[in-house]
Structure formats: C-alpha cells, structure tokens
C-alpha cells in the first residue's frame, strides 16, 4: 500500500472518532469502566498480598538450643539454619536477652518468682522466619535434626490458616479476574459490533468499489485503538483518584493499618507511570481486538 494511502486511512480512522461520536463515546465508556475495574482489582489484590505477606513475616519458628551449648556449636547451628533453602531470616537471641525479655513480659508483679533462681533458665534461641509457610513442617523437621538443638516450636495452626487463606484468596482472585475479562470482552465485542453495524453502509460501499479487507479494516482498527488509548488514560485517572481517596480515608485511622499489619501500603505514585502505560496498552489492545473481531465477522457475512 502506498504511504499516502496509508496516512489517509490513519487520518480517516482518527476523524471517524468524531464523526461517529455517539458510538465512539459508548466504546470509550465501556473500555474505561472495564479498565477501571481491572485496575482497582489489581491494586486490591496487590495490597491483599502485602497484608498476607506482612502477617506471614510475623510468624516465627523458635529454635531452642541446648542449655550447655558451646559457642562453636552455636555458630554451627546458625550456619546450618542459614544454609537451609526455606530460611528467610535468622535472628539470634542469647540466654541473657531471653531472660531479660521474659522478666519484662511478666512485669514487676511477678518479679518475686525470679528472685530465688540461681541461674538463667532460658536457652539461647534462633528466631527463624521462613520463606514458604506451607513448608513449615519441613522446616521444623530440618531444624530439629541439627545437633545441639533442644526443641523447635512453630505456630502450625496459624501457618495453616494463612496458607489456606492465601490459596483461597488466590483462587477467588483468579476467578474474579477471569469473570471480569470475559464480561468486559463480551461487552466490548458487542459495542464494537453495534458500531460496525451502524456503519455497514459505509463498509458495503468500500466492498462495492473493490476495497480489500485490510483497506476496510485499517481505519476501524486505528479508531478502536485510539478510543482504547484515550479510555485507558481516563481509566488511569479515575483509578488514581479512587485509590488515593480510599487510602486517604484509611490513613486517617492508623490503627486500621496496624491491625492489617500494613505499614508499607502501595502508593499509587510508585506505580503511576507503569499503570498509565499498562492502561493505555490494554485499552489499545481491547479496542483494536474488539473492532477487528467485529469487522471480521461482518466482512465474512
């Protein structure tokens, strides 16, 4: 195709947005709302993951070392724990620190209980955070077999609850996402089909004078893509406004964050350019794809 004819078709696609403004506006709204739903779902899903991640980070496996362990043995235990592939983080708590902590927790009211003890009864402890809660049994088993380890305590019930919640949330998230994609595609497809149907005479004229399918489709493709990009930009703006207003409401009550274990809630500013690019790309893709499918069906009929 000659360059001048190509630019004509591109210009035509652009001007058609205005000439068919009612249908363009309908397509714009549908794509914008679809992307808004996607965007908000994505942000909610991300923050849910952060919540669960934060809660998971608070789980701790306590590896108690034998009371008479020599320093070299302590170092060996630390090395073996750190070398385990499930280990995320290891913190050492000495006998003295454990003792101080215990007394602090019990408070002055019970201080009399400790007055007659001759020696520190608390063992040295490694506090281990693992990277996969579903493997907590495996980790406990591994740590128990290290020479010099007296006992290993782990929050099994809590870990199982979090693992199950994380899995269920994942399934629900995927189901919601798939449902959203299907609903959005069906709506976008039908809207563009209506748009194509409204311009069937124009298409028939083009066919009548011997235009190829590519020649007929190109302006519609450009039009659909541009509407998609504009809708993507608008949905980005709405997503930003909606997300930031929700965050500001929650930010007014810091205790909610503390309950949720979220200190580092996702700031929209951190992802805004990525979100804008994704919105525009997704909009262009949905708009172009919807148009091409609808056109293809119309041209075949």
């Amino acid at each position: 195709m000659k360059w001048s004819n190509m630019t004509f078709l591109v210009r035509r696609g652009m001007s058609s947005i205005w000439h068919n403004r009612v249908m363009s506006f309908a397509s714009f709204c549908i794509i914008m709302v679809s992307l808004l739903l996607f965007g908000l779902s994505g942000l909610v899903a991300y923050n849910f993951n952060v919540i669960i991640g934060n809660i998971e980070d608070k789980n701790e496996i306590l590896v108690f070392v034998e009371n008479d362990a020599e320093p070299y043995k302590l170092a060996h235990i630390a090395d073996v724990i750190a070398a385990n592939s499930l280990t995320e983080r290891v913190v050492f708590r000495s006998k003295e620190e454990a003792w101080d902590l215990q007394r602090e927790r019990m408070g002055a009211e019970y201080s009399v209980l400790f007055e007659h003890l001759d020696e520190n009864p608390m063992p040295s402890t490694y506090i281990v955070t693992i990277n996969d809660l579903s493997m907590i049994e495996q980790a406990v088993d591994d740590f128990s077999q290290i020479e010099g380890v007296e006992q290993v305590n782990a929050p099994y019930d809590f870990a199982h609850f979090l693992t199950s919640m994380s899995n269920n949330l994942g399934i629900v998230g995927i189901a919601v996402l798939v449902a959203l994609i299907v609903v959005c595609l069906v709506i976008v497809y039908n809207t563009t089909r209506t748009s194509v149907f409204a311009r069937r005479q124009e298409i028939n004229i083009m066919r009548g004078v011997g235009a190829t399918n590519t020649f007929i489709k190109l302006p519609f493709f450009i039009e659909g893509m541009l509407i998609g990009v504009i809708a993507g930009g608008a949905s980005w703006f709405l997503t930003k406004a909606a997300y930031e207003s929700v965050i500001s409401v929650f930010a007014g009550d810091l205790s909610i964050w503390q309950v949720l274990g979220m200190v580092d809630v996702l700031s929209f500013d951190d992802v805004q350019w990525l979100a804008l690019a994704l919105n525009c790309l997704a909009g262009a893709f949905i708009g172009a794809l919807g148009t091409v499918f609808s056109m293809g069906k119309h041209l075949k009929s």
Partner: protein
Amino acid sequence: MVELKNVDVRYRERGGVEALNDINIKIEDGEFVFIVGSSGAGKSTLLKLLTRENQPTSGRVFVNGYNLSKLKGSKVLMLRRSIGMIFQDFRLIPNLTVYENVAFVLRVTDKSKRFIRQRVPYVLNLVGLSNRAKAYPSQLSGGEQQRVAIARAFASDPGLIIADEPTGNLDPELSYGIVEVLKDINQCGTTVIMVTHEHDIVKYFGGRIISLKDGSVAFDDTIGGGDEVE
C-alpha cells in the same frame, strides 16, 4: 464485454423461485444499453450476477474478460475494480468530501497521490462539479450527489459502468441531465449498462433496449431516440 450464456437463477430460500430463465445476452465493448422491466422481472438479479454478488444456478457469465463461475477471492475484488457502480441511493460516504469520495476509489486501487491529484479534478469537471469538491454529500442536491457517484464510478476508468436506477430518486429534469453525463462517458469508450423503469427516458435517448419479463428476455433490440417521446 459482457456475456451471459444460458443463465438460470433459482432462489432456494424462496422455494426454488426462478428469478432468471435461460438468459442469453451479449453486450459489446463501448455499447450503451438500457435494461428495463417491471418489479420482479429479474433486473436486480441480473446486476448481482454481473458484480458476482450472486452466482447462476446454471449457465456462464463473462464480464470484462473474467469468467465469473471460476472467480474466487482476490479476483472478485479485481472484477469489482473493473466495474463502476452507480446506485439509486447514491451510496456516497457521508463523512468524506466530494473530492475524497471520488479519490477513495483510486486509493482502493492504490493509485499514486500525483495520479489522484490529476484524475479527481478531471472527472469532477466532466460531471460539472469542480466547484463543489470540498462539499460533503449532505450539502448537495440529489442530482449533484448522483453526479458525484458517476464521477466516482468513472474515476478509475473502468471498462464497464453499471447504473442501477440512477434516476430513481431524482426529478425528471435532473434525470435527463444524469443520463446525458452517462452518454458522455460512453462516448469515451466505456460500456454503460443502465437499469431503469422510466420508459420516457428510454424513449427519449433510444439505443439498445433489453426488456426483462418474468425472468426472461422479452425484447432486445435497438430503437431510435428523441422523436419517440410521447
């Protein structure tokens, strides 16, 4: 050249109704032919055969050197590009100017920008619409819109122009002007087939007349013009 040999068309979806029955027509290059007949006589079916929108149930159709029975895919596009079509309802693209409507058919055939710049003003001048090049179809009268349609049909210099009731939506005085333009184009060597039910026009201009009745050729002969107007 247009030739139909022993052509039958039956519509299965209408219970096997015979739309055309044993049609044999041969139209030589450069002829001007009127096709007349009442509603249901088979005029539209005949035109759809020539543009390969329909295929005959039996028989063979040849248009501009193409054997339409064997025509597939991109060859159908090539056939349509070799025919200029004019319709009763003009069928102009509403959001393109007169100039762009005419240029559109040249863009479809991937003509150069330079060629388009030369050809479009020429054909617009031929139909007397040089001064309306920037107007949109909605800003034109019916007669002017039909002239644009004629300019578009002639722009790619096709060997054959088919005009399907081109005067059907126009006042009688404008109708004669439209046929005059088609006659001028015919003088350039282009074959013109004009379907009409307006007998006055046919009698006025004369020439070869093919009359269809109940799907068959009832009359195919040449009559004189002008003096036969009642």
